[in-house]
Structure formats: C-alpha cells, structure tokens
C-alpha cells in the first residue's frame, strides 16, 4: 500500500506545483486538473474472447487567468518539461484571448469538499483475474442466447472495469483528490424470425463495486427478453395517442430537461426555459432534483470540477422552475451562485454536468400504467437526436410495443414520436413508482398525452 500512497502524494504535489509555476510566470489565477485512469474491457462473442483490452493513462490540464484573459492547455506528458511546456503555453495563449469581466475561478469562500466516504471507490472492481473477468462476459452472453431458438447471433457479452482518480488544485489553495470505480456487465443478443429479419437489444448492470453487480445470468435473461419482444415489428398509422415511456427512454426525456436548465443554455437564451425562473413551466405533478451528494451515486462527487462542493438542487418543484444548474461562469452571467455543477475533462473550459438527476416517483407500477391505456404506444428505445432546445420541439425515432386495451400487443418500429418538451411535461398524466438508478439520471415510467406518432 505504501507505493500507492506515494503516488497519490505525487499527483497532488504535481498539480499544486503546476499552479505555483503558473503564478510565478504571471498568472493572476490558475487551476490544474490531473486525471489518472485504468481500464479493462473484454468482449466475448459466440463463446470466444473477441477482444481483451487493458491499459492505464494519465494526463494533466492547466487553466490560467492573466487578468481577465483566460486560456488552457492539456498534455499527456507529465515529465517536468511537459508540465512546464503546458503552463508556459497557457500563459502565452492567454495573450490572444479577450478580457471577459465574468471570467475567473470560484471565490475562496465557495471552495470546499464534502468530507467522509462517499462510497465512490471499491478496489474489488480490479480484483478478478483475466480468466474470471472473461467468464463473467461469457456467462452473460450464454444466458442471453439460451432458452429460445430464435436467439441466433450476438454482438457479445462484456465485462468492463475502470478506476479513475481526479486531482484538482487552484491558486486559492484548494487541493482535492478523489477516486472512483465502476464495473459493468452487458449482453447484446440478436434474434431472427422465419423471414430472416433480425433484431438486437441489450441489457447491462453497472456498479461501483463488484459486490453489487447483478449476476451475468440476470443481465443475459433480460437482454434476451428485450430482444425477443422486438421480433415481428410493424409500422403503425400516423396518429395522436397516449405514450408510455419505459424507464430508459423516460430518462432520456429527463436528460432533455437537464439540457434546458443548464446555465449555459439559459444565459444565452438558447433554452425554452430561459428567463422562466419562478414560473410554472410543467405540470404540477412534476418535481425534478439534482443531487451530487448521494452516497455511492453515479453522479456523486465530493467537489465539482472547479473545487466547489456538490449539493442538492431542486430544479422543478410541483411544475415550477426553481433552479438552474450552473458553474461559476454561468452563475455570474445570471447574477446567481454556482450550484457546484462544473464539469470538465482535462482540456477546455469547464462546462456543466448533472449530479444524480431524478424525477420524484409516483404511486403506480409500470404494469398498472400500461393497463390504464386503452390504445397507445409503449416506447422502449429512441433512435436519433431530434431535439431543438431553443424551441423545445421534439421529434425522435422510436421503437416500442403497441398497447390495446391495457395489453402489450405487438412490437412497433420505424416510427417517430413528436411533441414540444414544454407541452409534453405539462401533459404527464402518470408517473411510475419505479425510480431505479442505472446511471446518473433516473426517471420512473411516464405516461404523456397529446404526442404525435408518425408512421404510415
């Protein structure tokens, strides 16, 4: 363990050293991020290992302010010469940028981090031998292809593991460091019908610890079920019907809300929710929260990419727009305070990312919601990206299952579903009780009225 401790110390010192060097060279403020990661992935296809990948990498990003001028550089060369070049490069580059009165790193009083173990890191994700990792992927695929002769092919079963470390230092003396881990299992079976038409679908389990990963058999079984139910899909007539969004697609819709309350889109008036703080924008049954502090969450971090502690922000409360999600810059532009949502890779300016974003669940199960639909569509997958945040217009390719008299009757594909996000979230008539975290965004099953299904 002593070697790991030494390495950790080095990276924090490295980041602080780069900041110090930037100040010496004339930066009025500076920030340095170091990222370190190890990744393992394997794909087993039709029982044989198809790929096996294992590697680690490190790189560093520097952001400097010279007065009100900003610039940033990144490098994968962490030698003293490489870092010197990156720091000098950033200062040099700041000469060509404009003075932006709103620029700068967070004020000292905004900096800080959540103390204690947030449950982000478990070293068990890297505890398996290659043979054991391959076996997990193999079992997931095997389960995905078992039990039905129509499951004839596969894009494979996978096992992935990843360990990341992020170090941040700035010229106000902030120094932070956290590690995170994840592992996942997935399966992508392909089924074909008598006519040779093929369908594929997938399922996965992801966890910060091996101990909580679902069994490969369970992942494979669900993947198979999802794939088989798509066989024999048809188009439907163009019409307006109630639409039930299965959790993954409902989460996609919630992701559009995130984009629309992103401080960057707001101050630019590039969102249909710009300027509507305090107004009723959606139906009174909708409450949306972003919480970067939930222990073990996929969107949890002790501090954001600018060194501001993460927090819980109510975005929508009973249909009213309560808060935007912001970093330091966009908050200044809007005359508000950062919500600790700064997000960045190593290169570039900080952007905005969600913490654990979710929609408050309702009472009914998914089955009950489907049973309540006389004639409508159950959407299980989106295809394409037809969303205009400026207007809220929404039109995406979709596939799913047709509902008649509360029963799922036949699969549907080659259709689009369209509406306007503002209207859609005002017309949510049912919210499921099934809030399940499979990533940093979670949304229960939703039923929405008044959307257009375009088909034949």
């Amino acid at each position, binding site marked *: 363990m002593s070697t790991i401790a030494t390495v950790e110390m080095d990276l924090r010192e490295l980041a602080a050293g780069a900041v110090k060097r930037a100040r010496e060279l004339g930066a009025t403020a500076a920030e340095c991020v170091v990222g370190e990661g190890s990744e393992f992935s394997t794909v087993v*296809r039709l029982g*044989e*290992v*198809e*790929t*096996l*990948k*294992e*590697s*680690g*990498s*490190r*790189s560093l990003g520097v952001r400097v302010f010279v007065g009100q001028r*900003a*610039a*940033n*550089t*990144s490098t*994968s060369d962490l030698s003293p010469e*490489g870092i010197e070049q*990156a720091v000098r*490069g*950033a200062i040099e*580059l700041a000469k*060509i*940028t*404009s*003075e*932006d009165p709103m*620029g700068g790193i967070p004020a000292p009083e905004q900096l800080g981090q959540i103390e204690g173990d947030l449950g982000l890191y478990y070293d068990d994700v890297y505890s398996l031998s290659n043979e054991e990792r391959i076996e997990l992927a193999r079992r997931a695929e095997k389960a995905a292809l078992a039990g039905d002769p129509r499951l004839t092919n596969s*894009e494979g079963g996978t096992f992935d593991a990843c360990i990341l470390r992020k170090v941040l230092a700035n010229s106000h003396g902030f120094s932070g460091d956290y590690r995170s881990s994840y592992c996942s299992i997935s399966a992508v079976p392909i089924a074909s019908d008598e006519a040779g038409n*093929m369908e*594929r679908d997938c399922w996965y389990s992801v966890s910060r610890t091996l101990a909580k990963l679902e069994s490969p058999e369970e992942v494979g079984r669900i993947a198979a079920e999802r794939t088989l139910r798509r066989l024999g*899909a048809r188009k439907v007539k*163009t019409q307006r019907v109630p639409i039930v969004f299965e959790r993954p697609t409902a989460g996609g819709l919630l992701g559009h809300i995130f984009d629309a309350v992103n401080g960057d889109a707001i101050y630019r*008036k*590039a969102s249909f929710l710009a300027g509507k703080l305090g107004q009723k924008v959606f139906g009174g049954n909708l409450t949306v929260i972003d919480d970067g502090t939930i222990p073990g969450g996929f969107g949890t971090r002790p501090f954001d990419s600018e060194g501001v502690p993460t927090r819980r922000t109510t975005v929508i409360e009973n249909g009213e727009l309560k808060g935007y999600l912001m970093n330091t810059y966009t908050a200044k532009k809007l005359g508000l305070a950062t919500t600790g949502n700064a997000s960045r890779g190593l290169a*570039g*300016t900080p952007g905005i990312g969600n913490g654990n974003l979710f929609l408050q669940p309702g009472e009914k199960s998914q089955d009950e919601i489907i049973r309540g639909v006389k004639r409508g569509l159950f959407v299980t997958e989106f*295809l*394409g*990206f*037809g969303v*205009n945040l*400026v*207007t809220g*217009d929404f*039109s*995406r*390719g979709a*596939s799913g299952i047709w509902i008649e008299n509360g029963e799922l009757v036949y699969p549907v*594909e*080659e*259709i*689009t579903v*369209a509406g*306007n996000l503002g209207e859609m979230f005002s017309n949510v008539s049912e919210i499921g009780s099934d809030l399940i975290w499979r990533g940093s965004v979670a949304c229960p099953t939703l039923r929405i009225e008044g959307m*257009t299904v*375009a088909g*034949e």
Partner: protein
Amino acid sequence: MDKRFFFEKYGLSACDLEKYLGAALSAGGDYADLYFEYVTSTALSVDESMVKSASQGISAGCGVRVVTGDRTGYAYTDNLAPEKILYAARTAALIASGPAKTPVVSLKETQRPSLYPIADAASDAELSKKVELVFRADKAARAYDPRIKEVRASYADELRRILVIGSDGTFAEDIQPLSRLSVFVIAHDGEISAKGNSGGGGRHKFEMFLTEKTPEYFATEAARQAIIQLGAVSCPAGEMEVVLGPGWPGILLHEAIGHGLEADFNRKKTSAFSGLLGKRVASDKCTVVDNGTLSERRGSLNVDDEGNATNNTMLIEKGILKGYMADKLSARLMGLPNTGNGRRESYEHIPMPRMTNTYMLSGDDMPEDIIKSVKRGLYAVNFGGGQVDITNGKFVFSASEAFLIEDGKITAPVRDATLIGNGPDVLTRVSMVGNDLELDEGVGTCGKDGQSVPVGVGIPTLKIDRMTVGGTGSAA
C-alpha cells in the same frame, strides 16, 4: 518534411520496433502491430463577441495490438519509454497462447500519396490569424440581420503524426492536418427563436479560410438558416415524397447504408445487409462509393490507421451491392480485399472498418425537374445528426432546414423534421438523381462503438418516393 519523427523525438530505432513486435508475438498470435501517435491541437472560439478562452493540447501514445484468429488483445501507453511499450506489448499478448512467433524482419515502407499539404497546414498559421477568423465570423453573422442575437464561432485544428508498424512488414508514417471553422447563431424575434448552424474545413492549407471558405461565407449561411427558421411552420407527420438537397444531406447514405456495409458487421452477420453482396439494394440510378483518396477532404487519408493506402471503393453500382469496407482483420477472415478502411480514434482504440468520404455519383436529372415532379412533399437541405440500428436497418436523421413542396414549388419552411426509414429499402425508392453531386463542407464526425473519426458525405439532389417524416403537424 520531418520524416522519422518518432525516431528522432523518442529515440526509437528499427531494432527497437522489431523488439516490440517480438514481445507482442511472444505468446504466439497471427499478427501484431504498433500504432504511434502524436497529436497537437488548438481550439478557440468567439462568444458574445469575446474570445473567452483558447485551448491547446498535446497527446501522445502507442497502442499495441495482437491478433489471433478473430481475437484481439490490446494495450496502450501514453509514456513512450521502451519499458512501457514493452509492457503494453506483453499485456496485449495475453490474448494469444502458443509458441512465440517471429515477425517479418524487413519492414517495408508503404508508398503513400500526398493528398494533403504538410507545409502551411492550418495548424501552422499564427494564432492571431486564427483569432481573426472567428471575429470576422461573429461580425458577419451579426451584420446579416439585427434579429441575430447570439453568435458563437469556433475554430479548431490539429496535426496528427502517426507511425504504424506491423509484423507483416507494414511500415507507414503519415502527417495528417485537419481544421474546421464553425458558426452557430440564434435569432430572436419577439417570442420566436430559431437557430442556424454552418461550418466547414478539411485537410487543407490555412489559406482556404481566407480565399474560398471564408468566415463570412459560413456566418452568412448560419444566419440565413436561422432567419428562415423564424418563419417555420410545424412539420407534417406521415409518409410522403422527400427530396434531399445536394451535399450534407448525404448523411442519409452514411446512416442508411454506409454503416451496414462496414465489413465487421457483415463478417458477424449482424447487419441488415449481410449476405446481400451481388443483390439489388437500390434503384438502378444509384451508384455509391467510399473514397478516401480525394484531395484535402475531411474524410481522406494517405494511409489508414493500419498503414494501408486508402481507396476509391465501389459500394453500390447501379443499384447492385458490390463491396464492403474492410480493415485487415475483416479482409483476412472474410477473404475480401482490404479497402484501407481500418481507422481508430486514437492510440487508445482498436482499429475497425470505418467510412472515409461516402457519396453517391451524379445522375441525369435536373434539380429543378426533381422539385417540379413532387405534388406534396418535403425538401430537406440541412441536417443535424443521424443514427442507425445496424441489425434491423432502421435509421433516422434530423433535418435542421426543410421546406414543404406543394404542386412542384418550394413553399413554407418547416420546423425540425425527423426522417426515418429502413436502410436496405430506402434507396430502392430513389426515383430521380440530380446531376449536381456536392460533397459536404467538411464538418462530419462519425461515432461507432464509442470512437469518433472525421468523415465526409455527399449526394446529388435525390428524390425518394416514400419516407416517413416525423413532426407534430397534421398528416400530409
């Protein structure tokens, strides 16, 4: 030209390279290669008429691949010290099991064309000149119409140096410049808002942005789109005739058939196009190629990321499926010609078959006759992104600028139409092909399995007899 860049910068020798290949094949395997990469990049943008920030980056590393049958072992390092490369080689070798193999000792340099300039590449231009481009774009977009309220113009370039060596004797170096200028605008008119997007670039000299593809050219185009969209009506929903304008709407080919013709999906028989070689997949007016050999184009490459020269590959000839796009692995396993389509995002990634510049050749129809032939339909001229499900062939793409066609005339602009179709049959419904092939301006980035690579697309004006259009308006 600074040949042997990696030899000089990292003190590599031919002897070291053989040693690394030897380590990669130390546990057996059919083939091994090493991919060295060194990329410098610059990006800056103007936003609210200020250059708020600028970025530069350096990324370097080496990826080692070992192939045994259809199995691939892969490892990479961002530290090019000999012991790190050897470690990566031994890690990649974990996939193999058997007696050590000896790589071909005489590495033979791949003859490569010069499809793009090295001297005066965009990345060599002075920073101040790059800054001037984005300021000019900002000014031109705002000058177009007072309703243009938000302008973001960005400039990005990179210079990628690669060296690929393979146990089959492959030795290929290349220096690949790439640059792009983009303009995004938002127009506000009272309560109504609309956006516009334009941009372009390629592997050309910086001068191109000062002569032909100027900031004013892209800025005016983005502003024009936004102002037109201010007057847009909701898009009708349902099946109708669709006319695609020339150039960037070629993304239809990319999504509808391009991905389905990448050899890996066909080797695994997971593509809706599997087993259709020699069969009709399009109307006889359609001839489609993937051509990585066009001069200075965004999707062009002297050599692919496996060290093979790129090609002009016939995919569909007069409606008949003629070929797939292959990399080394697919070509060997399927007994197909290697078309030089092995590409990867960076040294961290395993190469796979990818498109370069994919386009349909011109036909005989006059574009105006195509419009005239439509009673009621959609004329789509600009697109956002698209996506395809390779297995069932269903694809969608989103039009950012489209108009209704009524009685042979282009009428009202419509808001955000989405087009959805089925890859193996959409081209069978192409009834007219214009004589006006255009390639896109050079903005395309294609994603597959989490890897992004620059690509080009193109089509002449096309008429598709029936396609589903997704909108909220009443059925056409």
